[in-house]
């Protein structure tokens, strides 16, 4: 029977050696096969849909559990700390003989107790630290500071201990001094942790070196020791929680297994990397990188670069749009605007943006004294345009005050999209900057040259627009395709192609449909088209009386 199927498909000729009855049987059989296949497809699809829902349910449950865990950790930690403070206070009082003399045995015992209390407090603090970091409830307080300064500060703390264990402590600062932009206290925390570990796992007479290496955008700090090293099996688990290694070797307090995990979280917050190299009995080197203190725009470029790298490394590519937002003041007296007002307005702008761009992966950074860079994840040009407009609306209600003068604030925007506009961070930023500063392009389509000229003069007087006049519908469509105006002003009555038809064609074109349109007409709008044009859809200007209104409309739109 398959022979028949094959010959029909291959030879495309009617099999003459088959009886009608046989062929009919064949057809019935094939029909049944198709029914079965249809059933199979349906059942498979239903199954897939249900499994997908199941996956979402489980994923949500996981998120809830994670949140619960974080909440639990912080509540418990707080409750545990209070009694510990009381215990410590009491024991210290007795040990210090403030409440009366005690003998040596009693003092030794109390010392042990204090040691344990301190250790317990340490564990609780670490747990709390970690849970806050993981829950994203830690805000970095960054400043620009010198690396050697921080290294020396930490090393001083460990002087007594390295001396007592005959460990040599070296500092390698061969590269020139560089400023890094980081949270100073947190970096001290990391260095303290790494150096303490190095001391813990390095035998007497060993050597610890702390140094730094500088590259274009970051500084790498390393802590090297000649200690017992780490087994290759343990290396990948180093920065995991509650993992402890080499506990049997070496003296010193037992750790909490959380130190390195905390270090990793802090470094992640700084967009840096932390890693270790080690071989058993050949010592270890722990490295971590931090961003250099750079000018705002270079910093933005660097962050964009990192973001693009992450994006490109993903299996599923999605869009990223760069939106530059610049504050402009609407009255000409620019020189009166002081730095404080600018800063204030920029903060205001940042808040407005945060209200609109709420995706967790969106980022807002200062690009210059009056400009912000916003990275919008999974957003295309139209989306970015919408965000920019919403922000403009929010900012329009704010006013800047300088002395007794009040200035209205406006926001200019420039957009560039990955991957449509390219994949290089600097180029994307340059493009967005270009879009930010260029004059908006307006296309006027009207068959009466006088009207067109009048409108053009009116618009070009503001010095903010680049105006092109076209007198024919067909030519206008071509021009729009090649030039991509930011706004089109169309006359309804045109030769060859009516204004309505032109609008229709624009709205159907994939790239042109989002360009705003203003309609000009000398008489009232045709009944049929009142839905498409007219209040709410596209603004209509009656010429020539409406011309003074046209600027208002344009301000609204652009």
């Amino acid at each position, binding site marked *: 029977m398959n022979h028949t199927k094959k010959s029909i498909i291959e030879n495309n000729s009617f099999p003459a050696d088959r009886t009608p009855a046989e062929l009919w049987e064949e057809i019935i059989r094939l029909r049944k096969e198709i029914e079965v296949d249809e059933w199979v497809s349906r059942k*498979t699809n239903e*199954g897939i849909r249900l499994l997908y*829902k199941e996956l979402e349910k489980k994923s949500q449950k996981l998120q809830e559990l994670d949140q619960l865990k974080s909440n639990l950790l912080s509540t418990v930690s707080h409750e545990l700390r209070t009694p510990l403070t009381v215990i410590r206070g009491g024991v210290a009082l007795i040990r210090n003989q403030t409440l009366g003399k005690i003998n040596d045995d009693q003092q030794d015992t109390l010392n042990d107790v204090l040691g344990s209390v301190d250790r317990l407090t340490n564990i609780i603090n670490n747990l709390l630290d970690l849970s806050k970091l993981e829950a994203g409830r830690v805000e970095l307080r960054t400043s620009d500071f010198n690396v050697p300064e921080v290294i020396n500060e930490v090393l001083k703390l460990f002087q007594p201990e390295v001396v007592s264990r005959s460990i040599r402590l070296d500092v390698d600062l061969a590269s020139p001094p560089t400023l890094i932009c980081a949270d100073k206290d947190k970096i001290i925390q990391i260095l303290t942790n790494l150096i303490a570990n190095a001391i813990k796992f390095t035998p007497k007479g060993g050597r610890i070196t702390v140094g730094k290496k500088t590259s274009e955008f970051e500084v790498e700090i390393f802590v090297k020791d000649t200690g017992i090293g780490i087994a290759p099996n343990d290396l990948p688990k180093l920065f995991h929680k509650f993992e402890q290694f080499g506990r049997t070797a070496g003296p010193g307090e037992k750790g909490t297994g959380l130190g390195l995990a905390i270090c990793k979280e802090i470094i992640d917050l700084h967009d840096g990397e932390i890693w270790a190299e080690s071989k058993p009995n050949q010592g270890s080197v722990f490295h971590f990188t931090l961003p250099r203190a750079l000018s705002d725009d270079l910093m933005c470029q660097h962050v964009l670069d990192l973001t693009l790298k992450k994006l490109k490394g993903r299996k599923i590519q999605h869009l990223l749009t760069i939106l530059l937002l610049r504050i402009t003041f609407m009255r000409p007296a620019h020189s009166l605007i002081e730095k404080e007002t600018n800063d204030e307005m920029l903060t205001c702008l940042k808040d407005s943006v945060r209200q609109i761009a709420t995706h967790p992966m969106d980022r807002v950074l200062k690009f210059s004294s009056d400009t912000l860079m916003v990275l919008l994840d999974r957003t295309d040009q139209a989306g970015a345009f919408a965000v920019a407009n919403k922000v403009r609306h929010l900012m329009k209600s704010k006013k800047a005050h300088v002395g007794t003068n009040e200035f209205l604030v406006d926001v200019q925007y420039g957009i560039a999209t990955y991957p449509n506009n390219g994949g290089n961070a600097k180029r994307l930023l340059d493009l967005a900057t270009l879009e930010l500063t260029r004059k908006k392009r307006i296309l006027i389509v009207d068959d009466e040259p006088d009207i067109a000229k009048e409108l053009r003069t009116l618009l070009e007087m503001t010095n903010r627009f680049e105006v092109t006049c076209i007198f024919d519908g067909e030519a206008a469509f071509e021009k729009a395709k090649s030039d991509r105006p930011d706004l089109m002003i169309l006359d309804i009555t045109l030769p060859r192609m009516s204004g309505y038809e032109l609008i229709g064609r624009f709205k159907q074109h994939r790239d042109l449909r989002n360009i705003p349109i203003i309609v000009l007409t000398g008489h009232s709008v045709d009944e049929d088209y009142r839905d498409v044009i007219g209040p709410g859809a596209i603004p209509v200007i009656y010429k020539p009386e409406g011309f003074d209104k046209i600027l208002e409309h344009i301000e609204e739109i652009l």
Partner: protein
Amino acid sequence: MNKKILIIDDNLDDTEIMTRHLKEAGYQNILTAANGKSGIKLAEDEKPNLVILDTLLPDVDGFEVCRSLKSSERINSHVVMLTGAVDAVDAKKARKAGTDDYVVKTSDCAALICAVNSLFKG
């Protein structure tokens, strides 16, 4: 309802979840078997109205069990085949083995209950 349902599945947790959901849906008479052979035997003895059968069984091929259930004269029940991971090739095998439905296991057993209900209705 006085319908008798037999579950043939070697995963005890899954069986427990399914039993619970079936009982909540009103089916009180639930029997279980943990492998194909004892499942067929139980079906012959107890003559359930519907058999819920996992595609993956420890001793025999699930589809074989389905064929045996459907071809046996002593057993006259609906068969619903269950899987943890939906697969088009399996679906076809199940249909060819004579199953009345092929559904996926989920934590709420929604698909299963739905299939059982519609088989008893129609």
